[in-house]
């Protein structure tokens, strides 16, 4: 029973924040001459397939949401794990791109191999590439103390330009005049849940429109691995110890340097996996759209909204995926620019961060609850101070 209460309590703040965001967002819509109710009806229809008025297919909407949320889970984990160690990985995007590039290169090079061999190869290749990409930041942090915010931002840009180089004029370019790569071999692809068949009708539409793929399960397993790693292993203990206080961790015999490097490598592997899954499960080739991809940045919001826990990240991914999918339905059904979604996301984050609800609750006597209160110090808040601790004399000694 206490578990139920904890879950309900843990959900209270995020849910309240969502409500707060929708109220404020609704006011913004109304103030600019729109109808917030029809806007939100479109959003809910697009995200969850509920209450659709224009004949949208609920199953299709839900499937779109799932496709959107899948990479958010893994990249969200890739941001949340370093947070626990007091590191701000702003480079999940670059690591995702590294993963997608490696996955594509391997999937093309060995396109004739069968699935049991090639699929693990492309996924592992993506993880290794992502790990290396993040590892640069980890090693620079652990050795010369270069701040990971700078290095991961630099690695993001390097990945973006490398991507364009590879597909425009570079070795992965499909043909002159294109800005994409060859498709990866059939053996490198993740299976979709329903057969990719245009003639099979499921829920009133061709089965191939439901793009949900087995990457979803990989992402959920990744979230579980994250939770297990963090709370059930020595490494997880070390990561949290380093995040709490590098000095104390050092006294406890934890190698801070090694922990920083390993944390970044693992985080990068998660992000790289997200990139590989997108290629193997959704796109099957590398295109210029990856240049303007923002998954790795959305992941920061997801990790923060999920309060750094595996369940929280999955739920936050669900919300962001639904908002993403809902935005375009809202636009065509209610005529409200889908950019409202960004405004809502920001308001949710504000509300979570500032605990407006807590402030409101304090104003109303009789409404007391402990469980909904935020942890005394969220991981991200401790971040920059821990970086400071790293610079103290003696931190090199480990």
């Amino acid at each position, binding site marked *: 029973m206490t578990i139920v209460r904890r879950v309900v309590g843990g959900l209270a703040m995020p849910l309240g924040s969502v409500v707060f965001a929708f109220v404020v967002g609704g006011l*913004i819509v109304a103030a*600019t*001459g*729109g109808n917030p109710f029809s806007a939100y009806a479109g959003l809910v229809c697009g995200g969850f397939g509920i209450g659709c008025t224009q004949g949208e297919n609920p199953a299709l909407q839900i499937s779109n949401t799932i496709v959107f949320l899948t990479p958010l889970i893994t990249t969200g984990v890739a941001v949340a794990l370093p947070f626990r160690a007091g590191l*701000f990985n*702003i480079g999940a995007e670059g690591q995702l791109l590294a993963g997608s590039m490696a996955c594509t290169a391997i999937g093309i090079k060995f396109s004739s191999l069968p699935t049991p061999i090639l699929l693990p190869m492309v996924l592992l290749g993506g993880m290794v590439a992502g790990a290396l990409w993040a590892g*640069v930041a980890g090693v*620079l942090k652990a050795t*010369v*103390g*270069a*701040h990971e*915010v*700078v*290095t991961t*931002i*630099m*690695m993001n*840009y*390097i990945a973006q*330009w*490398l991507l*364009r*180089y590879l597909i*425009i*004029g*570079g070795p992965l370019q499909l043909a002159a005049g294109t800005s994409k790569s060859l498709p990866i071999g059939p053996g490198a692809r993740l299976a979709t849940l329903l057969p990719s068949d245009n003639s099979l009708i499921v829920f009133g539409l061709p089965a191939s429109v439901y793009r949900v793929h087995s990457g979803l399960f990989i992402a959920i397993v990744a979230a579980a691995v994250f939770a297990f790693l963090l709370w059930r292993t020595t490494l997880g203990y070390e990561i949290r110890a380093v995040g709490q206080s590098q000095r104390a961790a050092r006294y406890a015999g934890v190698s801070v340097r090694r922990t920083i490097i390993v944390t970044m490598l693992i985080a990068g592997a998660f992000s790289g996996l997200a990139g590989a899954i997108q290629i193997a499960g959704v796109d099957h080739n590398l295109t210029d759209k990856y240049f303007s991809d923002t998954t790795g940045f959305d992941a*920061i*919001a997801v990790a*923060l909204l999920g309060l750094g826990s595996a369940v929280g990240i999955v739920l936050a991914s669900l919300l962001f995926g639904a908002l993403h999918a809902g935005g375009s339905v809202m636009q065509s059904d209610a005529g409200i*620019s889908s*950019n*409202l*979604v*960004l*405004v*809502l*996301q*920001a*308001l949710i*984050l*504000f509300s*979570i*961060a*500032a*605990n*407006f609800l807590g*402030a409101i609750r304090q104003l109303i006597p009789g409404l007391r609850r402990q469980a909904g209160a935020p942890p005394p110090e*969220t991981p*991200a*808040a*401790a*971040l*920059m*101070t821990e*970086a*400071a601790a*790293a*610079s103290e004399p003696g931190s090199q000694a480990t």
Partner: protein
Amino acid sequence: MTGLSDILHLLYTANLWQAALAAAVLLLLPALGGVISERSGVVNIAMEGMMLTGAFFGVVADLAWHNPWLATGVAILAGGLMALVHAVVSIRFHADQIVSGIAINIFAAGITVFLVNRIYGIQDVGHATQSELLPNFNVPGLDQLPFLGQVLFQQNVVVYAALILLVLVHIVLFRTRLGLRIRAVGEHPQAADTAGINVYLIRYGAVVTSGFLSGLAGAFLAIGVSNTFVPNMTDGRGYIALAAMIFGKWTPFGAFVACLIFGLGQAIYDNNSIIHVSPYLLSMLPYILTLVVLAGLVGRSSPPAADGIPYVPGSE
């Protein structure tokens, strides 16, 4: 090798450095804002959003009133207003400052385009005429100096303003009592409070100032360098400024050096019509260079001790 010699040749031209300085200033202003904010103990990664907001409202005001100075004032205020939100959320509500910063950036990206759609529909936002732009100004006499004249004294008014602000911020932070207070609040807020310094006031002031500077950068981008608003036109400059600030170890001149590296990279890239290197590889150059410099020369960057920690009186 022709690519390399092309670049080396460019480095001897005043023209390249003139462009590099202008590009650097677009990063320097938000970076200075970041320095001030974080020196007072408030993490600020929201320069991107503040700059974008400034750019948008600067253009709206300029097109409405046809006065670039007034419009710049509006842009500065708009940036400051976004910063005020960040300040209230992170100082009054003790919020996680990174979350709040990310939220500002997302909010700005969303609200500007949302408002473009709402205000202008599908009509073009419009273009400021030459007289509605922040002007270029050649400093009489000095602009005739060989090489340096073109680089330093044939620039936009905002460039001069930014260079003056650079020196000013340095002096204020490190040579005045106000600066001492700001730094004290950022290092040891409890001690500062005990010594009678109003921690909240200093932090509010510092954060809002960072918004002013980012807003000014937005105005320079939208109605100085360009003459219109394009969605997401800041193009990640706030994040580069963030990197520059950390690279420069939270000092104005350190940040300026980093901004110059990026500005120079941009200016070199601008010559891709005549440099025979893949433009994509060329684009990578400043980022790789930054990593190399970080690894080899700069190394450890440490923020102010209380950076990112909400101040709660009586704690500790």
